[in-house]
């Protein structure tokens, strides 16, 4: 279509490697400094939409004061941002000029630099402010995302052409929901290790992405008043150790004396199941009847009954059947099932899906699937934030003022002195909650920034054992010991400094522990940063300290995003990388290295069962 694409990322990712007209490499978690420098250049040259800001924004003066250095004596110029971001000042200026001179939309995968890093709410807010300075909502000037449009269950967020109806299977769903915030006692996932290890904690907001804005100011604590501490953990398909923050702390929490019993249900013996006292085997999708919808794929919204193609293997049951069996023993079966059989539930799912008037039950089963037709009026739907752009008074945003808040009135009201998330977004290098930047004291010992993306060859912790994928070098790399290691992308400059060659087995480490990986020496990562996908199967050499599988989340920061924000931090953190001597390690930890693993599929049940499988 001839639209220029500029990719700003620490890695020349798979889209950039093919589609980029320009790759601007940037150090992980420094985007806030880049956005500030761009805003500086626009303020300095007057190349921004001043009229738009007068009618669509509040607090611009306070923001300008900070950006131009009137607040703290430090102008946030491109020259200031260059050493922080690794982007030369002249490139920042050229980018700022190009952005201002053309209709520019910012496209992110799902969250881009605004998620999963220390203080990542700052780049998230600053990205919006930059868009605002160029007239956010005017045609061609929006923010777009590339996946998971159905995540928020809002038909306005579906990619175009939008479906005629937004499917929903919630009425038939039997699992718990993060939307249930009326429980007297709950705990954000990010705080589970802390709560168990310290016995108590407090936080603000329920951590749920669809919660109302005001909820982020609500204070919670654990244990909640009149409620118990955690004594037992019941978990299904868990992968906390390799998918959440500070997995090594999680392993300590699971073994804490206050946890009397852990019960897991999962199809495979892996990851968190290693800590469970009882593990019940669960069916895969192939072994059970169900009904499903796909709202994440974009244009094709699907409703499809799923019938088993094989009987359950061994004694495995579905998650639902296991929960029913326990409910029965607790006298809660009728309440839990609402008197419905599984067949009833599947039918109920169809009845309440939103598509029942568009396709009969018989036809749905005959065809096997239903594609929701496109909304016939989809072309009339307002594009992006055009309504706000054209008439901010009648189409206000959901901020307290209805406008774009360069100075957040909500934060000023509730957390006016929070230097980690001030009313005007800042560049937060390091602070009380996180010291993960290259100019923090920890960087002397741990001088590399780790970026960890969702895996290319899996979905979080799933598909780790697919043998065909594991043959691919960017998925796993075989070490001299025959083990397939997680690849770590490292620039030739950083590798040479450390005597590391392509294929060498290395340890990535900080105070939280060490993770082994295979060096994938590549020009596709900015010097000063290394990249390793998350989700590798946990395979401890020393439990809670050294992992062979490459589960990088075992050494990610434990603290949440910032003082008042309970999000996870799993990327943009400090570590060092060094070559390891596998022979020395094997001599030091003979039992761990003697553990059986499948040569193609990796760590397996044989390795963890006493007396073999």
């Amino acid at each position, binding site marked *: 279509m001839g639209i220029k694409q500029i990719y700003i990322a620490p890695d*020349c990712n*798979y889209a950039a*490697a*093919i589609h980029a007209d*320009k*790759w*601007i*490499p940037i150090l992980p978690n420094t985007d806030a400094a880049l956005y500030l420098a761009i805003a500086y250049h626009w303020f300095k040259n007057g190349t921004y939409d001043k009229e738009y800001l007068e009618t669509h924004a509040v607090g611009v003066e306070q923001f300008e004061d900070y950006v131009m250095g009137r607040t703290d004596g430090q102008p946030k110029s491109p*020259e200031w941002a260059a050493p922080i971001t690794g982007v030369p*000042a*002249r*490139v920042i*200026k*050229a*980018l700022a*000029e*190009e952005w201002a001179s053309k209709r520019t939309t910012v496209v992110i995968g799902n969250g881009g630099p605004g998620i999963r890093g220390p203080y990542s709410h700052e780049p998230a807010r600053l990205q919006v402010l930059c868009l605002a300075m160029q007239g956010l909502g005017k045609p061609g000037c929006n923010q777009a995302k590339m996946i998971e449009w159905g995540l928020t269950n809002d038909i306005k967020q579906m990619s175009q052409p939008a479906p005629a109806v937004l499917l929903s299977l919630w009425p038939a769903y039997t699992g718990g929901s993060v939307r249930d915030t009326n429980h007297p006692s709950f705990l954000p996932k990010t705080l589970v290790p802390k709560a168990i290890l310290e016995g108590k904690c407090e936080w603000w907001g329920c951590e749920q992405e669809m919660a109302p804005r005001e909820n982020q100011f609500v204070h919670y604590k654990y244990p909640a008043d009149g409620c118990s501490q955690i004594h037992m953990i019941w978990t299904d398909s868990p992968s906390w150790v390799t998918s959440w923050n500070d997995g090594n702390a999680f392993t300590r929490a699971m073994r804490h004396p206050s946890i009397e019993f852990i019960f897991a249900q999962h199809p495979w013996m892996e990851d968190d199941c290693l800590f469970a006292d009882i593990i019940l085997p669960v069916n895969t999708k192939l072994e059970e009847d169900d009904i499903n919808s796909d709202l994440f794929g974009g244009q094709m919204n699907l409703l499809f009954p799923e019938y088993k193609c094989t009987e359950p293997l061994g004694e495995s049951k579905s998650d639902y059947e296991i929960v029913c069996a326990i409910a029965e023993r607790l006298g809660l079966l009728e309440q839990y099932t609402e008197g419905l059989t599984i067949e009833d539930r599947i039918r109920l799912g169809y009845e309440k899906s939103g598509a029942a008037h568009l396709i009969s039950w018989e036809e749905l089963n005959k065809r096997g699937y239903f594609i929701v037709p496109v909304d016939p009026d989809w072309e009339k739907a307002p594009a992006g934030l055009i309504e706000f752009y054209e008439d901010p008074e009648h189409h206000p945003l959901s901020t307290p003022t209805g406008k774009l808040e360069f100075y957040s009135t909500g934060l000023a009201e509730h957390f006016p002195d929070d230097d980690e998330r001030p009313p005007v977004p800042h560049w937060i290098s390091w602070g009380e909650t996180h010291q993960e930047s290259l100019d923090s004291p920890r960087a002397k010992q741990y001088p590399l920034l780790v970026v960890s993306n969702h895996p290319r060859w899996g979905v979080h912790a799933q598909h780790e054992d697919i043998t065909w994928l594991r043959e691919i070098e960017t998925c796993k790399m075989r070490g001299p010991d025959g083990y397939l290691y997680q690849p770590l992308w490292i*620039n030739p400059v950083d590798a040479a400094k450390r005597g590391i060659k392509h294929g060498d087995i290395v340890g990535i480490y900080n105070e939280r522990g060490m993770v082994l990986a295979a060096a994938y020496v*590549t*020009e*596709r990562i*900015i*010097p000063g940063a290394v990249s390793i996908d998350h989700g590798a199967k946990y395979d401890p050499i020393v439990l809670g300290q050294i992992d062979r599988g490459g589960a990088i989340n075992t050494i990610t920061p434990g603290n949440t995003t910032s003082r008042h924000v309970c999000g996870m931090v799993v990327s943009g953190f400090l570590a060092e990388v060094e070559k390891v001597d596998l022979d020395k390690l094997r001599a030091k930890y003979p039992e761990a290295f003697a553990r059986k693993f499948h040569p193609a599929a990796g760590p397996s049940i044989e390795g963890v069962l006493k007396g073999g499988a």
Partner: protein
Amino acid sequence: MERGTFPKVRVTYHHMMCQHCQEAPCIEACPSHAIYRRPDGIVVIDPEKCRGHKMCIAACPYESVIWFNDDLNIAQKCTFCAHLLDQGWTETRCSDACPTGALTFGDEEDPKIRELLARAEPLRPDLPTRPRVLYLNLPKKWIAGAVFDPEADICLEGATVRAANTKTGQIVTAVTDNYGDFWPKDVPEGEYVITIEKEGYLPHKVGPVEVTAADVNVGDIGLWRG
């Protein structure tokens, strides 16, 4: 295949498959005479005649084309979906499946195919194999760099970059964009001297550089006001 050096990096995907050569080294090499060529040009390994010598794998000059099935003890490779074509399919499964239309299968008598063949080239022109898999848009090497003004600390747009082949005299030209980048991507192999000029600045010469084994990145070039 990853190419270039930071930050001028790209990935090109090279599809490697059996080339169904008209002069197939594997046919010659097989001591069991298990490999043969059909009248329609498809080269087939007969699984009943294969005795697992692996001479074909050693003889094939292309990468990762023939592999060995340890369970059946025979060599296996692409068959151009012969069994499907014999059932009436008009193209191979891979050609059918490719979402970007990167694979086109057909008869060389078909005018559409002839048009493509006229523009296509073999992957390894140095080999005498006479393959029946040909390629369009095989990437050539590039010369990349970026021009800037170190005094003003700005990227220089509109600088003319001329890379002259020292043997043939052929000149490859590029004009820098708003990031000062120049990146001509179809540079014939050879040795080049590069001249960079922009009005108001002293011209700058880089090289000679060898554009043969790998793509060339001359890095950031500063121009000084003249």
